């Protein structure tokens, strides 16, 4: 009973916390809301008239939406880059900030689900794909697996993060026997969401570009580059704008881990390219379309090379201790690796998988304005979720936001 009352207080106080802020905070939230409004307007047209407002067609039947979805699954999976050092190795500097990884995962998953929802032709029938109410083709369809994996991972992160924050709010230590199993469970689950998403493409014999055994390993390697890159930048921002103490060593440790995953990611990319180009079978056309262009079509080529180049430079910056420990070069590296993976695991994965199509046709796909508008709306939603969660989490982490320290006014109101 008492717990329920306290939890209610926690929720109410959190609400109160997110509605007041500095001018910068209001500006940022207003900006995100405006972007979301734009996304809704763009989506309404699509909802009315169908996916014809996108530039996807029968030849390239998945595009920008599914590309973003795939990339964001990787971001969500990357939370374990903090969880493992924090809980498996009990490394204190990271343990203090591990919850930020979970919050990032939650926001990324919200965006993932959003991208899936806007991509389907019949959003009114989304309940068909819901476990129990719908008719899930499990275990045959990998998309059914993905629905289950993503939602469970979302739930798990949500429960753990809320519980940890709530405990801190009530000034109690969390129950280890409850948290540890869940946190440890989140490690294989993070791997599984990305593996299942890779398998979704991987198992299609009709699409040789995806039908490669190292697709899932490549997914994981790239995820462990892009997700932490976001975290590194975020940690520095938090350090600057709040009293949150984040030790340099925590940041450098993450950066060091990233150097390994980045190197591995480049190696896997090279392995794939070698196999395709050296074998030079008919199936080489897909990777050719990506890196060299095919039959006069060069749309992806500049992006593909930009991705490789960014990845290489970022790897070097992170590998050399001197540039890794220099804030300027470290942040350049973060931006570069993020861009590199965004191209590689987004459009660079989806489009060459479908081009040329199964009957050899090349349809040049570029996202339409509707697609870009809807996508920015979803990104804004994700950022908003993240911002609001941070607004509560940071004071909790600082010990400012606890039941004991509730402002008298709030206490009176409750």
């Amino acid at each position, binding site marked *: 009973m008492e717990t329920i009352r306290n939890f209610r207080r926690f929720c109410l106080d959190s609400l109160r916390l997110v509605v007041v802020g500095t001018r910068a905070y209001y500006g940022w939230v207003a900006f995100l809301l405006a972007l979301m409004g734009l996304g809704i307007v763009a989506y309404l047209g699509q*909802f009315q*008239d*169908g*996916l*014809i407002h*996108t530039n*996807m*067609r*029968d*030849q390239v*039947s*998945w595009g920008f939406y599914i590309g973003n979805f795939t990339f964001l699954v990787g971001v969500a999976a990357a939370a374990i880059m903090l969880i493992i050092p924090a809980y498996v190795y009990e490394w204190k500097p990271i343990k203090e900030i591990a919850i930020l990884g979970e919050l990032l995962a939650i926001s990324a998953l919200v965006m993932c689900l959003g991208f*899936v929802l806007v*991509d*389907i*032709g*019949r*959003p*009114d*029938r*989304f*309940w*068909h*794909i819901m476990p*129990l*109410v*719908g*008719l*899930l*083709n499990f275990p*045959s*369809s*990998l*998309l*059914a697996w993905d*629905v289950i994996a993503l939602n469970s991972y979302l739930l798990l992160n949500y429960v753990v993060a809320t519980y940890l924050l709530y405990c801190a709010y009530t000034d109690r230590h969390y129950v280890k026997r409850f948290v540890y199993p869940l946190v440890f469970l989140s490690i294989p689950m993070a791997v599984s969401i990305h593996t299942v998403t890779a398998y*979704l*493409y991987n*198992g*299609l*014999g*009709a*699409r040789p570009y995806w039908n490669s055994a190292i697709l899932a390993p490549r997914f994981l390697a790239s995820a462990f580059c892009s997700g932490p890159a976001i975290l590194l930048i975020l940690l520095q921002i938090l350090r600057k704008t709040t009293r949150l103490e984040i030790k340099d060593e925590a940041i450098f440790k993450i950066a060091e881990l990233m150097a390994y995953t980045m190197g591995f990611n480049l190696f896997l990319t090279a392995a794939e390219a070698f196999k395709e180009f050296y074998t030079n079978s*008919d199936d080489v*056309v897909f990777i050719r379309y990506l890196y060299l262009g095919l039959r006069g079509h060069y749309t992806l080529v500049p992006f593909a090379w930009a991705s490789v180049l960014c990845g290489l430079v970022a790897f070097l910056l992170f590998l050399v201790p001197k540039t890794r420990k220099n804030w300027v070069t470290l942040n350049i590296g973060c931006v570069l690796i993020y861009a590199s993976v965004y191209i590689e695991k987004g459009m660079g994965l989806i489009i060459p*998988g*479908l081009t*040329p*199509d*199964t*009957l*050899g*046709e090349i349809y040049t796909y570029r996202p339409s304005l509707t697609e870009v508008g809807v996508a920015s709306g979803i990104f804004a939603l994700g950022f908003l979720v993240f911002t609001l969660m941070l607004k509560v989490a940071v004071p909790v982490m600082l010990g400012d936001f606890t039941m004991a320290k509730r402002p008298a006014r709030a206490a009176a109101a409750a």
Partner: protein
Amino acid sequence: MSDTPKTSASSLACGEPQSGSRRRFIRAAGCAAVAAALTGCGNLTTEEFLQRNFRELDKKELAEIIARLEKEYTAKFRKKVTVAATPPMPGVVFGYALDLSRCIGCRRCVYACVKENNQSRDPQIQWIRVLQMDKAEGVNVLHADPYYDPPLVPQEGHFYMPVQCHQCKNPPCVKVCPVKATWQEPDGITVVDYNWCIGCRYCMAACPYGARRFNWGEPHLPPEEINPVTEYLGNRPRPKGVVEKCTFCIQRTRKGRYPACVEICPTGSRKFGNLLDPGSEIRYVIENKRVFLFKEELNTQPKFFYFYGV
């Protein structure tokens, strides 16, 4: 939503469910609220929203749905449209053979198919794609041209390869569908439940023959051009946002007729019949001609055979 005469979804939330089944009730209750929200922006009725997968319907429910659809189509196309749910014939598995040495690439099959199967005219949807290929290259999609448009066919140095659904015995599209909206019938035809498909297009990514088409926009079919004899799992008018494909004209073949493309072909390149009947023409072709399967290495086991008749 209340100004339409159709039942509003929200009425179900507090009303009683139409069927006694507990599972159905949970589904209904769980979805009614969302239905109310969604039907607010469209003209979806409760029945449509809550309708279950074709293979879960009992006789009575199916009859009701068919009556509803017939009414809707008849009003929309201003002539009597029938919707049947003809079951497969026992002891029949359909097979198709196409003579590459005869096909001249005239695309009459494409147009006959569009007419027979009520494909959308705008945006254009066609289930058959005829590829013009180089004789020097043989069957190789990387040298195929689907948009050939010469004044006269066939063109010197080329041959023509029509591609449509291969009705695989091992269909990748069925395997990947997350909601069981597409399946293989006992007579070997893979069908789509247009009222259950969520339009995720996973099946399109999985199909090696480019056979599945998506309704990117609202399909338009002029009333004077509709073929009013339709099948539930076949050529009935489709809604937007769902996938469709060749069904070997189940509205005809399940009643012993030939598919429209077989009938129209001026060169007799197209052969069709029951694979289980040893005396059928299709069996003769398979047993006596030089036959090949397109993308055989993918082990999709098509029931669509290409052959060289002469």
